[in-house]
């Protein structure tokens, strides 16, 4: 059974600080996704990481993937209040023979950035 563990699950930080959210998973996969969710809203895609060593950046967010360590990180640089949200990582297990198994999600990191 695929397990996806995020930590921390809750993070309160001040504007201007840097921090990293970690996502560990338990099976071989080279496809990992990061999503953002605002209260009462659906999931917004942030990053799709498709290979070992992949690094993507958008604004103050940067995501990376190490498939050998089965670890992805979401790094926040110089946080601003608008980044307050819940962040989810999700793994797409590759099933031989094709088909889509659906994403397995971590429990989410509830991020609060205080002015």
């Amino acid at each position, binding site marked *: 059974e695929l397990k996806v563990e995020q930590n921390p699950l809750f993070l309160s930080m001040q504007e201007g600080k840097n921090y990293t959210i970690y996502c560990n998973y338990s099976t071989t996969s080279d*496809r990992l*996704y990061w*999503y953002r969710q605002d209260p009462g*809203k*659906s*999931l917004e*895609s942030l990053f*799709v990481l*498709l290979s070992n060593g992949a690094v993507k950046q958008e604004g103050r967010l940067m995501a990376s993937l190490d498939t050998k360590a089965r670890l992805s990180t979401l790094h926040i640089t110089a946080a601003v209040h608008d980044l307050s949200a819940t962040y*989810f990582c*999700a793994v*797409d297990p*590759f*099933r*031989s*023979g*094709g*088909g*889509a*198994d*659906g*994403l*397995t*999600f*971590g*429990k*989410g990191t509830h991020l609060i950035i205080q002015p």
Partner: protein
Amino acid sequence: DVKVTQSSRYLVKRTGEKVFLECVQDMDHENMFWYRQDPGLGLRLIYFSYDVKMKEKGDIPEGYSVSREKKERFSLILESASTNQTSMYLCASSTGTGTTNYGYTFGSGTRLTVV
């Protein structure tokens, strides 16, 4: 842009009712998914489908069924609603199979309350 539309934003149903949650996507995606989201548990996969009339159980299929008669529409059915099925339900779609499958798009969600 890919659109995944869920027919209801909020629903209130009585225990024992048969409930239909509808999802329609407009980008000819092969794969469609139903998740439920609960606080502290993240998103969990209920059922998915990778073709018309095909369905596969996810991690928590008990108490649910699905129907996919047309490629663009995927319905989640609660045969006899119970209070423990009160949750946010999210539909998603994606295209491709195996290593070419990437990029999931989520609907805006249906918040179901069973009383």
